[in-house]
């Protein structure tokens, strides 16, 4: 399959067409979707229509856009007008949004071709995509293992060469962790860089949409298209999309990199080794690498599993059987609300709603929610102190390579621990990405994480590119 960069080049030159690329993608989906369960919905008709419109634009001599003819997979928590959007939940089964998320409109304007909606952990709550009400997604590299989560379907779509790029969302690691487990680039952009309008809310102060790709340039191309201020999202940064692709080959010469012990300790041996090798590759390219300890990172998991459920309990109050999705009839409105929510939500969603309700309830608010908001401040200050010494941080993305289906489903706390290295970035609202670096146990990919301050995406892409080059890619 062509990369996004190659697709745009070849579609523009006439070496291929958007329609031909879309047929390739649809055939690849057909070949493996039953086995891997990547897509919940494939929009063949819409994809062919958009591809035709790109091909017609080129035939007329019009500029077809920065992602002309590139097939793309969309996490099914992004609203797509007239196309089912479920969040992998029974509670939204059958719902067709009356509007597009801002990122979808931007993709269409750039000539990208959405081909369908991918599986996720219900309402993006999970780290393996096993919490989907419609069944798990399997890792294309080893179908006995999980693809990670919650954006597991979007990661698997790219790993299985169904589409060259895809979109996910990252609240505590939901892009970076599956990217690591599937051997992809996955980016959690700075909070507010990408509009959340039309991203179905999980934890609004942490959620951010971002790209998956097989290479750094494709990820940068996609992020450039979707970033930039949107008046429909009042938390979006009031500035235009940054220039990213132009800086991909800036390198790391003279840059200072902090290898964070707290983002490595406790990881499996193969993961630790990959991070050390990545540090050496950055040194070889002219960076200075120093070891740092940021002990505040250890509090991230606790703060996150109070804050995210607290916000979720409020955000998910809207699923009451009144305006959209499922309704389970009952004699009065309160009984209807309760019957609907009990039937519509899965166990993990119920756990988080109850946890959040508890953390916000009278008598416990200060001890849990109030304290977690202060830990969030500590986290921001700890990052800021580190960035007085270094330009970016390096660590592991996940403690292990892809794990087997079913191995953590009965123990929520064990599942939560797979996000331990990714959570600090979300709490601080900063930027981070995962880049595949070498292989670990069972020949599976290992992801290393590069972290930077808010708006440092160009710097992170340049460092990730150095790691690609070091692996001969």
């Amino acid at each position, binding site marked *: 399959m062509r990369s996004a960069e190659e697709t745009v080049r070849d579609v523009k030159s006439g070496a291929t067409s958007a329609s031909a690329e879309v047929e390739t993608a649809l055939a690849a989906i057909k070949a493996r979707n039953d086995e891997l369960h990547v897509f919940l919905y494939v929009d063949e008709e819409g994809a062919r229509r958009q591809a035709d419109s790109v091909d017609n634009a080129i035939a007329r001599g019009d500029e077809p856009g920065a992602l002309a003819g590139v097939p793309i997979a969309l996490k099914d928590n992004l609203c797509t007008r007239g196309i089912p959007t479920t969040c992998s939940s029974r509670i939204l089964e059958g719902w067709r949004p009356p509007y597009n998320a801002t990122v979808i409109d931007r993709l269409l304007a750039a000539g990208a071709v959405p081909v369908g909606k991918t599986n996720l952990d219900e309402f993006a709550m999970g780290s393996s995509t096993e919490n989907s009400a419609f069944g798990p997604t399997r890792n294309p590299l080893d179908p006995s293992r999980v693809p990670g989560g919650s954006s597991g379907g979007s990661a698997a779509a790219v790993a299985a060469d169904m589409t060259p790029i895809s979109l996910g969302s990252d609240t505590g690691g939901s892009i970076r962790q599956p990217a690591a487990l599937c051997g992809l680039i996955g980016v959690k952009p700075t909070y507010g860089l990408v509009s959340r309008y039309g991203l179905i809310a999980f934890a609004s102060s942490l959620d951010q949409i971002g790209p998956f790709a097989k290479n750094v340039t494709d990820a940068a191309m996609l992020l450039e298209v979707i970033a930039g201020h949107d008046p429909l999202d009042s938390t979006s940064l009031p500035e235009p999309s940054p220039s990213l692709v132009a800086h991909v080959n800036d390198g790391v010469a003279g840059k200072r990199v902090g290898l964070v012990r707290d983002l490595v300790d406790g990881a499996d041996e193969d993961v630790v080794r990959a991070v050390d090798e990545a540090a050496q590759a950055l040194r070889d390219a002219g960076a200075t690498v120093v070891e740092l300890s940021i002990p505040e990172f250890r509090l991230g998991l*606790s703060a996150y599993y109070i804050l995210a459920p607290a916000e979720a*309990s409020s955000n998910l109050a809207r699923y009451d059987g*009144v305006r959209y999705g499922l309704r389970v009839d009952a004699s009065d409105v309160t009984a209807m*609300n309760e019957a609907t929510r009990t039937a519509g939500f899965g166990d993990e969603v*119920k*756990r988080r*709603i109850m946890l959040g309700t*508890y953390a916000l309830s009278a008598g416990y608010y200060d001890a849990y929610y109030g304290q977690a908001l*202060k830990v969030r401040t500590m986290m921001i200050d700890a990052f800021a102190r580190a960035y007085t010494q270094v330009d970016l941080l390096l660590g592991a993305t996940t403690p292990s390579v892809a794990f087997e289906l079913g191995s953590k489903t009965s123990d929520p706390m064990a599942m939560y621990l797979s996000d331990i290295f990714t959570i600090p970035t979300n709490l601080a609202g900063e930027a981070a990405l995962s880049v595949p670096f070498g292989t670990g146990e069972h020949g599976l990919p290992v992801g290393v994480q590069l972290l930077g301050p808010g708006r440092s995406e160009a710097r992170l892409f340049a460092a990730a590119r150095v790691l690609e080059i070091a692996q001969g890619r």
Partner: protein
Amino acid sequence: MTPALRREDVAHVARLARLTLSEAELDRFTEQLGQVLEHANDMSSLDLEGVEATSHPFGLVNVVREDVVRPSLDRDEVLAMAPDAQDGRFAVPRIMGEAP
């Protein structure tokens, strides 16, 4: 340290969150949620007196726009997706008792 989570606490929050739990679910959720809260106790031992709370990472506040009418979603299209609608409105089961 905050007190351990009790079964009746879970029953209470389930009621607040409009969720019905079976007896077996109550047992299971009490144990699982208790583990998460126990983990969160590493925060409660911290002295954070004087530390400001953060709700937005960049302190963005008060985004305003001109108070002018803008196009919005089409009412019929929105209502077509509702479980029940009547006379241009969402319809729900009765909220109060029958009229006398």
